[in-house]
């Protein structure tokens, strides 16, 4: 009976995830906003963080590259997106073990369907959502290890932290959550934290030796600061679990009374649920509260002038501080906290109604379980426009094959010179350039992000130099010096006609793109051996740590099952 109930409970977050990702049933690959899954991604220097750009998706790109060598990127992307959402709900189910069925349904549904998750998925940042989804698992495992000294629990905390640490932001979340869940006076409770710190090497080392400028453009602080909605102020939007910087990712309902209703639900959940949650999980309640409120306060600080000024100085002067410029993402632990409190509040209501009979509990419970969906009724539609797969034109594969078949030391430039593209065969929304991940050669695009009427400069000095050279000369004249052997012109770009291709040799033409060889190109400079060796050593160390944790968890599981 208990097992059947557990399965049924697990189906609810899965069902909500399937609704949010319904367009994935269509054929094609994912390419919209930050969401890019190409059929096969080669393992390049850029994927390891040696491409000269800031390592924001390291080691994520390397892991995806390795996985696409065994599974097509279309299949992989579908699996990872579904896992990112479902794991959040299942993790909260684990944390709320002890609440009633209705309350756990409500909490797990809230973890999947809330403004934060919907806005981030609409921006295509599935890896951030995966990091958020790993938090309840890390917290639970770290706390179990602290209480019982279980080696298996410590290893599980390390494994879930590895999932979160696919991106630098997720890695910081993993470290904070391991501390929140596992910190105690006993020295033995600290070893998982040390191991989780080692898991951060794959992005820390490239950020130090990868060749990108270590500081970021301070313009990004204002551009990526939390945004407002119908609640009237970014701080209120954050309290309602929204407040993403990007207007295209904000559901329309956030511009209605529902933005205020979300704040009310958060407040009521906290008032009604806090005592029940503290009684149910006395060990975790305070720790999760500290983690969540810290994240909220950090995000709130970035809605203030002095907070933004301070971060602007940090971003301009302190290496790696650019990580904090998109402050709304720091809400992730707070969203987790609110999901648990919402479940506890529903539990309080269900218990009070119990004396009226099961009919009353069931009907009111149904209403409460649907509250998260009611707060963002257009959540699915907002996510759908990003996760709708598109059919990659054959020309992309042909271009990648052509370039990979050429000299090994020639880099690629895609033109017109942009960071993001809006291809005719895409979703209609801007996306990363797919060729960056399809070609086994360095691919240079502009690193400058245009947001509204402002431009945030990228961190790659090489890309900045190439962009400057292209602004002052013909590609055929200026590119050979940078080791650029190929130019790909996206033919459906409105500015494609302005690209001066004289002096270039056309080798492939299609309605979608044209590939040109650059005569006289020198060999492209490669990262120095010591940089590459240092980064690979850091990656291998982190990989051994993860494998070690996996083996330990398996052996300990077998050991404990034999004993029982």
């Amino acid at each position, binding site marked *: 009976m208990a097992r059947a109930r557990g399965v049924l409970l697990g189906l609810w977050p899965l069902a909500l995830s399937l609704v949010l990702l319904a367009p994935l049933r269509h054929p094609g690959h994912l390419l919209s906003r930050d969401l890019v899954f190409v059929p096969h991604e080669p393992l390049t220097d850029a994927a390891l963080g040696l491409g000269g750009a800031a390592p924001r998706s390291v080691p994520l790109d390397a892991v995806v590259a390795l996985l696409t060598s065994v599974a097509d990127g279309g299949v992989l992307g579908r699996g990872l997106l579904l896992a990112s959402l479902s794991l959040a709900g299942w993790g909260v189910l684990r944390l709320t073990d002890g609440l009633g069925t209705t309350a756990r349904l409500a909490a797990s549904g809230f973890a999947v369907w809330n403004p934060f998750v919907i806005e981030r998925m609409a921006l295509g940042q599935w890896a951030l959502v995966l990091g958020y989804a790993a938090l309840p698992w890390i917290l639970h495992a770290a706390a179990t290890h602290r209480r019982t000294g279980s080696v298996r629990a410590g290893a599980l905390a390390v494994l879930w932290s590895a999932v979160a640490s696919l991106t630098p932001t997720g890695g910081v979340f993993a470290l904070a959550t391991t501390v929140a869940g596992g910190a105690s006076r006993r020295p033995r409770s600290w070893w998982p934290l040390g191991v989780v710190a080692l898991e951060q090497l794959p992005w820390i080392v490239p950020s130090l030796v990868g060749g990108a400028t270590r500081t970021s453009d301070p313009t990004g602080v204002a551009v990526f600061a939390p945004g*407002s909605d119908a609640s009237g102020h970014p701080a209120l939007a954050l309290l309602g679990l929204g407040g993403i910087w*990007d207007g295209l990712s904000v559901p329309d309902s956030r511009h209605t009374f529902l933005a205020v209703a979300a704040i009310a639900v958060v407040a009521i959940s906290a008032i009604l649920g806090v005592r029940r949650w503290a009684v149910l999980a006395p060990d975790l309640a305070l720790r999760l509260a500290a983690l969540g409120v810290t994240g909220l306060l950090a995000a709130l600080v970035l809605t203030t002038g002095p907070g933004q000024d301070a971060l602007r100085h940090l971003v301009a002067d302190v290496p790696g501080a650019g990580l904090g410029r998109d402050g709304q993402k720091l809400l992730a632990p707070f969203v987790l906290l609110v999901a648990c409190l919402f479940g506890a509040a529903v539990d309080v209501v269900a218990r009070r109604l119990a004396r009226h009979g099961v*009919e009353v509990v069931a*009907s009111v419970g*149904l209403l409460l379980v649907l509250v998260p969906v009611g707060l963002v009724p257009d959540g699915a539609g907002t996510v759908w426009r990003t996760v709708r797969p598109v059919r990659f034109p054959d020309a992309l594969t042909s271009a990648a094959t052509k370039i990979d078949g050429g000299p090994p030391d020639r880099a690629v430039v895609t033109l017109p010179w942009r960071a993001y593209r809006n291809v005719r065969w895409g979703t209609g929304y801007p996306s990363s350039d797919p060729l960056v991940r399809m070609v086994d050669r360095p691919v240079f695009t502009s690193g400058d992000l245009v947001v509204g009427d402002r431009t945030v400069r990228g961190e790659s000095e090489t890309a900045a130099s190439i962009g400057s050279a292209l602004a002052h000369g013909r590609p055929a004249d200026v590119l050979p010096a940078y080791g650029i052997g190929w130019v790909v012109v996206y033919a459906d770009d409105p500015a494609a006609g302005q690209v001066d291709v004289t002096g270039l040799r056309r080798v492939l033409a299609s309605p979608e793109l044209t590939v040109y060889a650059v005569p006289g190109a020198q060999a492209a400079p490669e990262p120095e051996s010591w940089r590459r060796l240092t980064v690979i050593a850091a990656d291998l160390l982190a990989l051994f740590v993860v494998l070690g944790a996996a083996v330990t968890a398996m052996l300990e599981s077998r050991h404990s099952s034999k004993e029982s």
Partner: protein
Amino acid sequence: MVRVLVPALVGVVLAVVIAFLMVYLQNKAPSANPANAPILAYGTPAT
């Protein structure tokens, strides 16, 4: 009495909300035309 009234009330609320949403969504023009989005931009400020 409560056993009858509350489930009925919840049913009415759900029915009204769902009916309203169905009609509303069918009659609502898209808030943003993707074709109007600045094609070179990574995003737009929220407000």
